[in-house]
């Protein structure tokens, strides 16, 4: 790697941080300028993450490749940023999603409050930092940065509903942050290190007392991430918060739960992998049980939801549960499928959140009288007053309906789209169809997982059918929503990415498989980080 390319690794954090900060002094009246700045920044990030993905997938296990030493201190002492296939994948997903949400917001939602685009950039900076960092405490800092921006974004648009949801969201996340700190400090107290790679090396050599303390710390830490990931019973805040958020915010929040999943996946395979001695596989039974319960809870929630926003929020839970249980089962063959599912479900849910508002806009327009009455009681959604800018699209209902059908197919995991491919890959890995591992007995837990995964798909299909019929066929108000090009394009692009993923499932799955293989080989990661030479030295 040449010298300048080495610095590419810090750009995903620096660009949004600086653009976000630069936008703050710009007057809110120049909103469109801010929007364009933000969009260009996110676009740059998207290109950058593609480049990083290439670097991550081409490079071998040479020491120091993809490791960025902040302050040029070698790994266990200084903080490092680490790029591997998993973090590159998450960076790419984040910037792609952010791009869509940001384009969507320019049509009207960014006018609903102040500093939308700054907060959005800071959220991306926090997300990218969380994915790149190789240090536990640094992870906390980026996590808080991401959360602080997400509080602002959740409250964006204001109104009693959002403030109430925001209050609960802030409170629960502050409590979870306390747990995060307790967990990190317990781990530091026992091992004397905060570097993830170093931690993974040290765990096997610890005395039983210290190992127990690390396990307690990891457990407490895990709770903090599981709150974020939305594992039942830590997920009661999630549906309300997500359905109260403005659509572009909800869309980008779809990846916030995945941060929790990412950290759990990374730590459980890196620190508590096969090399961890007596601690190997720590917490997996809990992840499995919690994941299964989350799928069940999410599926029930999906069936019970009347409003589409809540349906989407419960779909987030189903997706989280599926991933957590897959990590809990921990069969190497499944993780590749799970990663594919992570990408596909995040894109789908984000597209669905964006689509919901477009579809419901038509229904709100017919309920003007009701809205007036509601306003008297302070319940009205004040953002509905905002004018939509831009050219409207023709054949609105046809396009919206088609997008809705695609979302339904993707959410329920029916062929031929990527939702199906993802679930098939997970189940294929579970039954050992990939042929990479020796045949083994299928346990009760495996069967429960298979059953729940299929039932959750059925539940999603029933719920989507019901909502679709009510909205598109049996709608008594015959008003057609006014949808502008810039709003529908992000939805179509997100769904098209899912279709692209289904067509190009082969190459995509190969990347995921390589990612999963590298995750199950923590020594290559630790060696890369700990043996990294100092720059200029």
């Amino acid at each position, binding site marked *: 790697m040449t010298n300048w390319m080495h610095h590419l690794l810090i750009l995903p954090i620096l660009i949004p941080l600086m653009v976000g900060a630069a936008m703050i002094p710009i007057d809110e009246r120049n909103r469109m300028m801010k929007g364009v700045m933000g969009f260009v920044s996110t676009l740059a990030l998207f290109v950058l993450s593609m480049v990083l993905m290439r670097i991550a997938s081409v490079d071998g296990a040479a020491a120091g490749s993809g490791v960025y030493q902040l302050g040029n201190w070698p790994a266990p002492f200084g903080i490092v940023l680490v790029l591997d296939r998993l973090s590159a994948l998450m960076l790419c997903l984040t910037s792609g999603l952010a791009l869509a949400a940001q384009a969507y917001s320019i049509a009207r939602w960014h006018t609903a409050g102040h500093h939308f685009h700054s907060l959005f950039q800071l959220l991306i900076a926090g997300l990218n930092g969380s994915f790149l960092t190789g240090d536990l*405490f640094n992870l906390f800092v980026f996590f808080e940065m991401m959360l602080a921006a997400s509080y602002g974004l959740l409250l964006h648009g204001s109104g009693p509903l959002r*403030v109430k949801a925001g*209050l609960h969201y802030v*409170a629960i996340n502050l*409590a979870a942050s*306390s747990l995060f*700190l*307790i967990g990190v*400090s317990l781990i530091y*107290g026992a091992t004397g290190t905060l570097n993830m790679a170093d931690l993974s090396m040290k765990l096997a050599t610890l005395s039983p007392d210290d190992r127990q303390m690390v396990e307690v710390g990891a457990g407490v830490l895990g709770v903090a991430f599981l709150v974020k990931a939305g594992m039942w019973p830590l997920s009661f805040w999630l549906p309300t918060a997500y359905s109260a958020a403005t659509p572009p915010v909800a869309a980008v929040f779809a990846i916030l739960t995945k941060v929790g999943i990412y950290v759990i996946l990374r730590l459980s395979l890196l620190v508590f992998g096969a090399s961890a001695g007596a601690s190997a596989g720590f917490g997996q039974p809990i992840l499995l049980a919690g994941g299964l319960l989350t799928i069940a809870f999410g599926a029930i929630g999906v069936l019970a939801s009347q409003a589409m926003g809540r349906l989407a929020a419960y779909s987030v839970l189903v997706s989280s549960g599926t991933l957590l249980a897959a990590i809990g089962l921990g069969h190497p063959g499944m993780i590749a499928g799970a990663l594919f599912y992570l990408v596909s479900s995040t894109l789908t849910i984000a597209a669905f959140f964006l689509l919901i508002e477009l579809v419901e806009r038509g229904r709100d327009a017919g309920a003007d009288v009701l809205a007036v009455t509601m306003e008297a009681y302070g319940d009205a959604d004040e953002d509905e007053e905002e004018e939509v800018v831009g050219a409207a699209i023709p054949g609105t209902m046809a396009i919206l309906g088609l997008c809705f059908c695609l979302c339904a197919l993707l959410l329920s995991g029916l062929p031929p789209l990527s939702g199906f491919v993802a679930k098939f890959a997970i189940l294929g890995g579970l039954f050992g169809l990939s042929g990479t591992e020796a045949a083994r007995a299928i346990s009760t837990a495996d069967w429960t997982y298979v059953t729940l995964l299929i039932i959750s798909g059925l539940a999603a299909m029933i719920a989507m059918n019901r909502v679709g019929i009510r909205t598109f066929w049996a709608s008594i108000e015959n008003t057609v929503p006014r949808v502008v090009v810039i709003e529908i394009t992000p939805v179509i692009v997100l769904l098209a990415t899912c279709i692209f993923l289904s067509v190009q499932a082969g190459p995509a799955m190969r990347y995921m498989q390589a990612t999963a293989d590298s995750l199950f080989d923590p020594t290559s990661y630790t060696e890369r980080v700990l043996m990294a030479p100092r720059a200029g030295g």
Partner: protein
Amino acid sequence: MEIILSAAIGVLTASGVYLLLRPRTYQVIIGLSLLSYAVNLFIFGMGRLRVNAPPVLEPGGVGDLSRFTDPVPQALVLTAIVIGFAMTALFLVVLLASRGFTGTDHVDGREQRHD
């Protein structure tokens, strides 16, 4: 000293959790503050309790490591204090907004009925 510190952390945590579960937003914010104090003390304690031991090297020599206390937890505490303080301020704003919108300081935005 160990007993005093652990008792302090315990009492702060217990009071914090109790207040966190109360229905008034002001109680929740005080509870979160107490909880963050407890966590800060806890992080500090994880560097092992030492008195009369500086966390930084003196100029002109490395010296004996046993004469120094672990500087990392102190740096962590500093970061945690700053972040915790900012978050409390932010929560305070949300609390006021909620009070303004709903006219009550109940966390659910409406009073519970007791009839």
